[in-house]
């Protein structure tokens, strides 16, 4: 088990390294250089002095090394926009995104697995066909359009839910209030993850149910619910764990749009504003940190996978 973990950990570090190299290369390829002063009128001497001050006259691998070392110390530089340390900005923005992501995953799992199980046990029934139809819609709907439509319906027409933000400004902290703000973003995000989980659970369970050991259990006279929960489901959940690993990057990607539309102060919204504002230190910080989060989440999933499936541990 520890060998398995060690291997996954090394793999994770390597991937993170590659991401940072890519991001750094990207930013330094920017036309105009990585520290263009866009709005000021500068003289050639000022630009030159600025370049030297930022260390841009050194060769690129030196710059990368310095950046990497700085990153280890937690220094991601300062935002072009307001001069605040990037790490500080990231620290503010990460929790809301994690909250949204965790809530969405929870909802998707809690709803998706039972729906998938029911779909599998009642294959080709009208229920099953309806579920499949909804799944298709879920993966085909453009998230931003759904978000806008939901806002139109629930915030404008019905006035049931707030249309943006993480909490109502000026009111004291209230769980109800937070939940109200969270419902629509989570629904939009879950529209992508839930159908995939349902489909995957369904197909995983179908495959397990056709296995010999299930047949044996039934032949021995075991009652169906017990067959399902004690034997079939446990094994079906193993591939579902792998799919979770794939869904997390997609989830975070979806969070970009959702956060932007709902004014949710998270990493996704930050990514968009810094991309549009060409705030390079911030962009780099966001990309690397989000990649780190995804890699950490994948590592956790691998851990769970290794724990769930004993065969993996002894590879």
């Amino acid at each position, binding site marked *: 088990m520890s060998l398995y973990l060690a291997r996954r950990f090394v793999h994770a570090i390597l*991937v993170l390294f590659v*991401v940072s190299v890519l991001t750094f290369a990207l930013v330094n390829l920017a*036309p105009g250089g990585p520290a263009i002063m866009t709005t000021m009128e500068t003289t050639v001497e000022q630009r030159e002095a600025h370049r030297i001050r930022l260390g841009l006259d050194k060769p690129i691998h030196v710059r990368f090394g310095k950046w990497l070392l700085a990153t280890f110390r937690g220094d991601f530089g300062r935002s072009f926009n307001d001069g605040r340390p990037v790490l500080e900005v990231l620290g503010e923005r990460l929790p809301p995104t994690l909250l949204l992501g965790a809530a969405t995953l929870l909802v998707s799992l809690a709803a998706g697995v039972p729906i998938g199980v029911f779909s599998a046990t009642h294959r080709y029934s009208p229920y099953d066909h309806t579920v499949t139809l909804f799944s298709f819609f879920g993966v*085909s709907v453009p998230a*931003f359009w759904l978000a*806008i439509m939901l806002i139109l319906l629930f915030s404008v027409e019905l006035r049931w839910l707030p249309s943006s933000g993480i909490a109502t400004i000026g009111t004291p902290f209230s769980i109800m209030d937070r939940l109200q703000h969270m419902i629509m973003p989570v629904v939009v995000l879950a529209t992508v993850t839930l159908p995939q989980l349902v489909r995957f659970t369904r197909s995983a369970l179908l495959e397990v149910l056709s296995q010999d050991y299930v047949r044996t259990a039934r032949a021995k006279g075991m009652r169906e619910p017990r067959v399902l929960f004690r034997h079939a489901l446990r094994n079906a959940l193993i591939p579902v764990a792998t799919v979770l690993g794939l869904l997390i990057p997609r989830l975070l*990607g979806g969070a970009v749009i959702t956060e932007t539309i709902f004014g949710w102060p998270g990493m996704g919204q930050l990514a968009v504003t810094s991309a*549009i504002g060409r705030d390079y230190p911030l962009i780099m910080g966001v990309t690397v940190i989000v990649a780190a989060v995804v890699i950490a989440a*994948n590592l956790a999933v691998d851990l769970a996978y290794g724990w769930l499936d004993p065969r993996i541990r002894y590879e």
Partner: protein
Amino acid sequence: MTHRGRAVVRPGEFRLVPGSESVPIATPKRRAGAARRLRRSTPAMMALGFLVMIHALAVAGPVVLSLDPFSTDPLGGLQGTSALHVLGTDELGRDVLSRLIYGARVSLLVGLLSMGVAIVTGSIIGALAGYFGGAADAWLMRFTDAMMALPTFFLILAVLAVFGGGPVVVMLVIGLTSWMQVARIVRGEVLRWRVAEFVDAARVIGASDGQILARHIFPQVAPSIIVTATLGVAFAILTESALSYLGLGIQPPTPSWGNMLQHAQQYLWSAPRLAVYPGGMILLTVLSYNFFGDGLRDALDPSLRNV
């Protein structure tokens, strides 16, 4: 590889001998069967019909359109359906229908071409990994897994921040971040087929690796690639419209369904239809691609039907 049994495999024949593959080879007779199965699936056929229609509209657009999607009419903004403007006008007085059709061209073209990039990249990587195996396979697949673990949307945003928007960058960046699924599937198929008898036969008569890959293995892998491509176009269209919506994809005044939605957001209370039309188009097109791709997959390999 040892040879057991007959050296020649007849089309459709199943081989249960170890060392050869017990899968049916795609022959004209099998392909006809697949086409028949596809025709029997109503959702897939309906999807195909819609796709044909929308692509025909996109291609024939300028001929069909009598109104210019770019000409503005500041005084005639936000009008509803009228005889001249079948779907009304947008905030700058441009005709919505012609912008939708022109946007179809842009969105579909970007979607198809980005998938093209992804297919080419993924096929090459997958084929190399599957055919040569060993260290090449291990490293290529590790690279693929790493790419799959990344939140590619953020990378795309970073790239677009650096290089600006525009159709070419968007196409390249979407293509270069969605080839991984293709690579995995191609690798799986190539692994499956490289142990087939006809590959050995080809090698015996002196075919090079390249020739074997291109002329013998590729036709067997093609159906899976087509299915993945169809589903991938759906994804590419969604991604492109999301990027254009954010203002980082196709830049105005070129209409794309995505950036039409962005402009429509400001007029949500006064003219909600401006948001409904482009979004609805995206939904219908992506839905059709998904239905058709799914039907295609079922038709080509019914053994996967339990999914």
